[in-house]
């Protein structure tokens, strides 16, 4: 893989130059949290961000978007007006999340709505330093080798920049003059030191390796009932989780003519009507069953299906659930094995 250097003070100029390719997004402070916001004004960029409220999935399958417009029975897919976008500041764990979504959406029965957005979204990764809610080291998602177009590694006054795709290479060429190509011995040393230091910064460890078995054994554990009593069914956990893909469909028409659109919105298995079928039968009526499904799906089913858990250790659920139901507490409760 090609590796380059970019002086830190050149970052804004570089990002600015990328506008020739597409809209530029990056971490922006919102209150005390961060979001990926449009960088019409680069002074808003805040590279010290930890996790954003919503993950990059919001660009690839927005919370609400049209899939088709129709009249009578002619359907036209809405794939044309998707803009080119550059998202800067994506942390390694989240890129792992993207790789999971890629598998999910692009392998069996490729989803064109996701695919087209993915193709038109350049992912510019950025190294990070964990806080007490990150546990990417436990999930082994704290480094990433693929899934990005460029990846920036922050080393004091410059970035090491990995070029991860041919698009990434094109993007570099937009301002090649800002980059340096000769990586020296001392850069390597610098990088290794940084890695060691950064690895030592992980304070939270959540071990997921034994989860499939533990979950199986805990199928009827009272832990689920306790969690179910507490859960607000607000669905926030699913919204913020980088690997939650579930959605709902609804057709919208105009009052006076037969034209409309088929809209797709994020859904959550935490909601009561998620598994409700015609005739009123609900396969997961109780909240405890829903909480159990959520965690079973992330920590067990994905391992069966894709060989690894669908948790990337980003800590968003820890940061989000008002009643403290999250991978950390659930795993702890299950291992505590009541």
């Amino acid at each position: 893989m090609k590796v380059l250097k970019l002086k830190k003070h050149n970052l804004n100029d570089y990002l600015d130059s990328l506008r020739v390719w597409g809209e530029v997004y990056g971490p922006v402070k919102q209150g005390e949290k961060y979001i990926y916001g449009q960088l019409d004004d680069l002074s808003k960029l805040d590279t010290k961000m930890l996790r954003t409220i919503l993950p990059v999935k919001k660009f690839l399958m927005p919370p609400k978007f049209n899939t088709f417009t129709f009249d009578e029975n002619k359907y036209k897919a809405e794939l044309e007006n998707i803009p080119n976008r550059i998202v800067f500041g994506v942390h390694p764990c989240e890129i792992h999340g993207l790789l999971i979504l890629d598998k999910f959406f692009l392998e069996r029965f490729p989803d064109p709505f996701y695919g087209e957005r993915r193709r038109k979204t350049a992912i510019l990764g950025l190294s990070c330093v964990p806080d007490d809610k990150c546990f990417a080291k436990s999930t082994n998602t704290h480094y990433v080798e693929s899934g990005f177009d460029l990846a920036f590694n922050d080393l004091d006054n410059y970035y090491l920049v990995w070029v991860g795709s041919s698009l990434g290479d094109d993007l570099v060429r937009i301002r090649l003059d800002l980059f340096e190509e000769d990586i020296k011995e001392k850069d390597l040393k610098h990088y290794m030191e940084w890695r060691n230091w950064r690895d030592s910064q992980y304070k939270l460890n959540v071990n997921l390796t034994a989860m499939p078995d533990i979950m199986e054994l805990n199928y009827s554990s009272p832990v689920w009932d306790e969690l179910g009593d507490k859960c607000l069914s607000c669905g926030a956990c699913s919204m913020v989780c980088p690997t939650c893909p579930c959605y709902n469909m609804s057709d919208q028409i105009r009052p006076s003519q037969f034209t409309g659109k088929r809209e797709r919105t994020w859904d959550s298995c935490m909601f009561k009507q998620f598994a409700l079928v015609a005739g009123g039968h609900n396969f997961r009526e109780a909240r405890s069953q829903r909480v159990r499904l959520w965690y079973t799906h992330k920590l067990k089913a994905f391992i069966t299906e894709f060989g690894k858990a669908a948790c990337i250790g980003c800590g968003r659920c820890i940061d989000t659930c008002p009643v403290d139901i999250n991978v950390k507490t659930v795993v702890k409760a299950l291992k505590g094995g009541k």
Partner: protein
Amino acid sequence: MANNVYLPEPMRIVRRYDLIDDVRFFQVRPLEMERALQLNYLPGQFMMVSLAGVGEAPFSISSTPSRPGLLEFGIRKVGIITEELFKLKENEVIGVRGPFGNGFPIDKFEKKDLIIVVGGLGAVPLRSLLLYTLDNRDRFGRIFFLYGARRPAEMLFRREFMELKSREDLHSMLTVDKDDTGRWTEQVGLVTALFKNLKDIDPQNTYATVCGPPVMYKFVIDEIIKLGIPKHQILMTLERRMHCGVGKCGHCVIGSIYTCMDGPVFSYWDVMHMKDLI
């Protein structure tokens, strides 16, 4: 995008009539013949049927791929989409996409005996299997067809199945829980009672397929197990809520299983070892 799995394909309703009180038969075909010839699917698979402005819902295919060019459905009026479908007349156009789901493992059935057990609406997908095996009669061993309905008036495809009774290469048994007409010529009793008529079953060489209302499964499967048929040779179809049919929307998830892709046909072994399946 050439292949958009979500894009409904317009199909015309060519025939439409009531099978029973609240279940209607729909025969549809693509607008163009070229496309009709390409239709390909397996018994046990389903299609997503779209009504613009109303929504989409999954329905099992009831026709057999051995009689190409057409798709047939048996649809029960239970909710929003089905109600609107019932309002449609012949020659109107609906959106259809698919086929989805695993379907029955026809190849594994080859040279084997087959017991097809049906309750109520389960006749819709299993008719596809039955007709397929009859159309390819020489590829399969003996075929037993067991169908139980509550009353004669509630038996789907009654006339069609009655006519099949005359076939010598098919052991067809039809039963009703109660005969309220006084003119019923077939059996009366639960479908499980028909099992005593199954003779000389070679369990290792037999597949059983079951589809019907949830209450029926337990009892029917008990009977099949009594015959000694291995759990992985007992197949059943399951239902869940679905909005995509292609393992994306998440509504049909059970543990690690997406009913729409890994099912809707499951073996009894799957059902036993995967929690929450039924």
